[in-house]
């Protein structure tokens, strides 16, 4: 990849982030809801201060958050904050900052998403590749079928089914939560084990939800590649089946799948939000869910932008890696 192309890519990345942040800024403002009023109104109802005090508190908070400024002015301040990656305080979880909230919830989401995305990519593509490989044993080729059928099941239903059968009826795994109630998080094996147990069902829900997609696209790709002249010539050369499968068939069939992986990163976040919500995991998806309900826009801004930037960065990374895998791209 030439330097010029790299610079163009990076400029595009900045453009994407700017567009996303602008959309994200204005959407919560379209609603008339006021997170501060809701939050402090709640406090006022549960006792404490008088309505006059409430108005005063809200007014001073508005000022502190800069919400009394004209919208355009707020927008400029907001863009400045993004450049500094500083999203300020959460309205709903005040006095936590948005960055603190993200830092707390991020490890949960990254752990879950990274593991499940990589696992479904590997499993799905291998199954799909084998399903389209005429010389694979029949039983092995059929292993892919149940996963393909699962693609039709939406992640919510998948999660609920898993919770109901494996968690509730069979009681093999916990129903939800990040770790057992009453346990204090420590750096111990027993806690790690407890935590892992709680991650299995959400992980399965995510994997079952996405493996089938990989199987389908890889099988389609495999059918094309399997008939390519270079795969036939490899057989004419007297190569062993395993080598043809790996070096001539799989390597070529995987190339478009890697682009697919970059695209999938965006949608994976969506399923994570659903699954984290259903299983009550303290991840970033759940946090976003709560922030949207409370119209806590600094937190919404922070999380959505963080996700956008992360996905855009990963996609750009894939684009930079791709030429290393496909020598034809390098010069074009």
């Amino acid at each position, binding site marked *: 990849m030439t330097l010029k192309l790299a610079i163009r890519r990076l400029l595009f990345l900045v453009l994407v982030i700017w567009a996303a942040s602008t959309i994200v800024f204005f959407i919560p403002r379209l609603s008339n809801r006021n997170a501060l009023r809701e939050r402090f109104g709640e406090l006022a109802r549960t006792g404490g201060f008088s309505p006059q005090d409430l108005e005063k508190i809200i007014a001073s908070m508005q000022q502190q958050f800069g919400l009394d400024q004209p919208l355009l002015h707020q927008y400029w301040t907001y863009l400045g904050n993004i450049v500094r990656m500083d999203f300020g305080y959460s309205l709903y979880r005040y006095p936590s900052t948005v960055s603190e909230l993200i830092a707390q919830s991020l490890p949960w989401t990254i752990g879950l998403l990274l593991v499940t995305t990589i696992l479904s990519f590997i499993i799905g593509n291998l199954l799909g590749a084998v399903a389209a490989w*005429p010389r694979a044993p029949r039983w092995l080729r059929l292993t892919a079928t149940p996963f393909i059928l699962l693609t039709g099941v939406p992640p919510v239903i998948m999660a609920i089914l898993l919770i109901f059968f494996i968690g509730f009826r069979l009681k093999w795994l916990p129903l939800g939560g990040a770790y057992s109630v009453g346990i204090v998080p420590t750096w111990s094996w027993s806690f790690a084990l407890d935590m892992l147990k709680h991650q299995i069902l959400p992980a399965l829900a995510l994997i079952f939800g996405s493996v089938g997609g990989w199987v389908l696209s890889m099988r389609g790709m495999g059918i094309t590649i399997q008939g*390519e*002249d*270079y795969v*036939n*010539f*490899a*057989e*004419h*050369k*007297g*190569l*062993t089946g395993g*080598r043809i499968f790996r*070096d*001539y068939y799989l*390597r*070529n069939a995987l*190339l478009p799948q890697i682009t697919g992986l970059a695209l999938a990163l965006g949608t994976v976040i969506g399923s994570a939000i659903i699954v984290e919500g259903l299983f009550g995991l303290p991840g970033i998806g759940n946090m976003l869910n709560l922030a949207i309900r409370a119209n806590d826009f600094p937190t919404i801004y922070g999380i959505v932008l963080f996700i956008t930037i992360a996905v855009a960065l990963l996609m750009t990374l894939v684009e930079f890696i791709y030429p290393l*895998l*496909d*020598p*034809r791209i390098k*010069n074009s």
Partner: protein
Amino acid sequence: MNYSNLSVAPTARAAMPPLAAKVEPVLRVSGLEVTYYTDAGRAKALDNVTFTLNPGEKLGMVGESGSGKSTMALAMMRMIKAPGRIEGGSVVVGDTDLMSLDAEGMRKARLSKIAYIPQGAMNSLNPVMRIGAQMMDAVKSHLPRESRAAIEARCKRALQSVDLDPGVFRMHPHELSGGMKQRVCIAIGILLDPQVIIADEPTSALDVVTQRQVMETIDNVKNAINAAVILIGHDMGLMAQFVDKVAVMYAGRLVEFSTVREMFTDPRHPYARALIDSLPNLDNKGVFQGIPGLAPSLLRLPSGCAFHPRCASIMDSCRSVRPEPRVLAGGRSVTCHLYDGEG
């Protein structure tokens, strides 16, 4: 018919052994049959094909598109894929009967005994692997004990013998021109000094100059390892200058098999005659005439001789009785009722 003023006369070959000499054939194909079981019905793409080749001999295989040339080559490699099946016959290379080998034995025979240089060499190289890696893995899978250095030296020698720069070893296919890719495929074909080399339309995608160079390359490497070479192609003119023998295919059958001189001066099968007549010559001022009529569908072959609807010499028996291959004086073989009394 006057065949003496053909613009493409076979070149004289002093080194060619006389036909009567006792040379053991290196390739014996007999009774080869292939059927494709398609949804529309059974297509007999190869029907009772028999011929032999001696070491160092070059056979040109011609015939219309769909006449079964590639099927012939793939059947010899035992690479016919579903819905096709080899239904009979034998292919013997040296003293190995390929049809009796198990899958692993056949894998080892490919490239080391009989090599196939594919039709469409443009796409026959793996786009994501370096040329060197694609040559080395071929050698390694046949000679697992040979050292890396020895394998590399062997590959570079092969590149040299097809007039390619050893630098090609480190390149990727997309960095090569069509002619270079074709040469790489030939280089791969000769890596293990096979006894038989089949090149399926090695020049059809190339310009005239490159065509000649590739043909000469094949000629040189053939001489170096004394292999029998089968060249598949449509271009009778190009064939005439490079081959010793010509096989004419029609609708899955070998209708004539003779020396190039016999073929060009005295073709016997009416289809072969039509082919030779259609070549541009001084009489018709270089205009390609083509052969009247259409190639038959394998699914609905005409009764008797499949060529009879287009044949200029048709007789009564041709419509109902299938001619069988007949060996005539001098060793040439013709599949036509005109020669029922001969041989």
